[in-house]
């Protein structure tokens, strides 16, 4: 793992030449100009939809888009709450994402630890299987999965949404890659010599070492579960939706009333925006670590 998140500033005693002509030269106007362009590209669609969600439909007819919000956000939001079971959907999405995150992190850490640090017959074969399934689009098994849920009588309940997301091959792979390097074998041996059994060794040696990776995996699993759309759309009905499927209901109900639809889009984005503000740094380091390892 070698990600210098904060690079050392050039020391003042560095040779002048390097500071002005080498690669540590502070970039100029052009760079910051481009960065600002990227920033505008990322933020403007969100800002525009926020502005439009605080206005009324007639404002969409303006040839130049307004830049400042109007005052109708709560009026529009009220309509959103009346036309879809918003709070219920929010609760469902939260429950689904939390349960899935807990389960994925637990099972991935257990399995990843076993693959990384324990010797057992068939280990390599099973690991190859895990890696092979990384490239398999399991989403395409939705038809039998749907039949399975119907047989169990689970359709319409959020349990049906949770079940297929309980484990991921990516999680196992990610934890294994991380744990291979961070747990020294001597530490495990020492724990064993001291008489700790396997599960104690896992809790006292592996879990503390795995904590940073667990946090990253939790973050990404939560986001994936939160954004899932196709499967909940199939197994849930309109009375008990997740936030994402509720949005599509809102769109069908108000396809001519743009400001209301956008108010719904903004409302549904708020939870993840909060997460982004709180854990944005971890999200970035997670993406960058997963890449180097992948």
């Amino acid at each position, binding site marked *: 793992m070698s990600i210098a998140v904060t690079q050392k500033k050039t020391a003042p005693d560095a040779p002048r030449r390097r500071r002005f002509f080498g690669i540590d030269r502070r970039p100029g106007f052009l760079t910051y100009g481009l*960065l600002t362009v990227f920033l505008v590209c990322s933020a403007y669609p969100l800002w525009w939809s926020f502005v439009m969600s605080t206005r009324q439909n007639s404002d969409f007819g303006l040839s130049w888009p307004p830049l400042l919000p109007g005052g109708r956000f709560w009026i529009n939001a009220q309509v959103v709450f009346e036309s879809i079971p918003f709070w219920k959907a929010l609760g469902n999405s939260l429950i689904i994402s939390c349960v899935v995150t807990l389960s994925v992190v637990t099972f991935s850490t257990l399995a990843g630890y076993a693959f990384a640090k324990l010797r057992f017959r068939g280990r390599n074969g099973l690991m190859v299987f895990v890696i092979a399934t990384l490239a398999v689009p399991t989403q395409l*098994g939705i038809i039998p999965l749907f039949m399975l849920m119907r047989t169990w009588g689970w359709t319409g309940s959020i349990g049906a949404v949770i079940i297929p997301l309980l484990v991921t091959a990516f999680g196992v792979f990610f934890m294994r890659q991380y744990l291979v390097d961070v747990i020294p074998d001597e530490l495990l041996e020492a724990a064993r010599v001291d008489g700790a059994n396997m599960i104690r060794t896992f809790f006292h040696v592996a879990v503390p070492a795995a904590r940073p990776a667990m946090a990253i995996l939790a973050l990404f699993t939560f986001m994936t579960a939160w954004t899932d759309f196709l499967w909940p759309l199939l197994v849930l009905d309109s009375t008990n939706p997740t936030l994402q499927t509720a949005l599509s209901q809102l769109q069908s109900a108000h396809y001519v009333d743009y400001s209301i639809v956008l108010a719904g889009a903004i409302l549904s984005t708020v939870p993840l925006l909060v997460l982004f503000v709180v854990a944005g740094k971890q999200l970035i380091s997670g993406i960058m670590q997963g890449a180097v390892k992948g």
Partner: protein
Amino acid sequence: MTATLTPGKTTPSHSSSPRTPDRAERRRHWLSRLDVKASPYAYVAPFFIVFGLVGLFPLIYTFVVSLYDWDLLKGQGDFVGIDNFVSVLQDEFFWNSLFNTFSIFVLSSIPQLIAATFIAAILDQNIRSKTFWRMSILLPYVVTPAAVALIFSNMFSEDYGLINNMLQNFGLDAIGWKTDTLPSHIAIATMVNWRWTGYNALILLAAMQSVPRDVHESAALDGAGMLRRFFSITLPSIRPTMVFVIITATIGGLQIFVEPRMFDAATAGGSQRQFQTTVLYLWEMAFFRQNFGEASAIAWLLFLIIVGIGLINFLLSRSIATAETKVSTTRRQRRLAAYRNKEVSR
């Protein structure tokens, strides 16, 4: 979970015959052996059991369903062999959906990869407040695809959409984003690009940062300019990561569903199916036409296509990599030979 017994004091079952410490010792030893042998399997079992049940089994069973006449409500019908596959392959809507999927995929992956590489190269400099800029490009990633689809389908709306308004402000004609084939593909690809470019840029940035700085240093000292350094050092060294990004983009891109589904709420991919993707067609086949057999055949065909393209990507990248090493080795040898000749002639 695992019930590993902590070998405590063994309670003698017959108090009349006192156990030898030797036996207790052996028993404890045996238990700990069992613990060591069985625990790993217990740790990996939950993943394999659940994954087998909800991941692998449905995928394989999809094939079984595709061999039958199978209706959403009536259930299993007659065994029809490969008839479902034949009728899917003769179905113009299926080919139309494949064309749309690939068209959207190409429009959303190639520009995205180029933009992400460019953004990563910009971020790879010694800029101030790094985290802020990184967060700013990652912002779209936290907007869920459903919300992205809503926002952009309003922007691309034909009558009062932001994009068409702007076009008319500059004296251009409005474009039929939702009725014409290519514009609708561009609009949907834009949603994908907007959400994923920053994410992929960060992945590529990580790869760029793992290039040792002194390589750049020495190249700069040898007089290589920024562009030269980018093409000769940065690009070759991020190739493996590029392949990784391309493969994940393929797996995701060919299964695109949310964006075309919500781009037009009233239809399943446009009034003329002009942006109906394959997964969207699968969904229509299964839950509207209620033909599970043909829908499963579609799922399997798409599955084969995705895995096939993934393999081709992988093999191509490998062969390119080996060819590269060959070229560079021969070059190196030639240079060494020339150098030696020079040394000798001196």
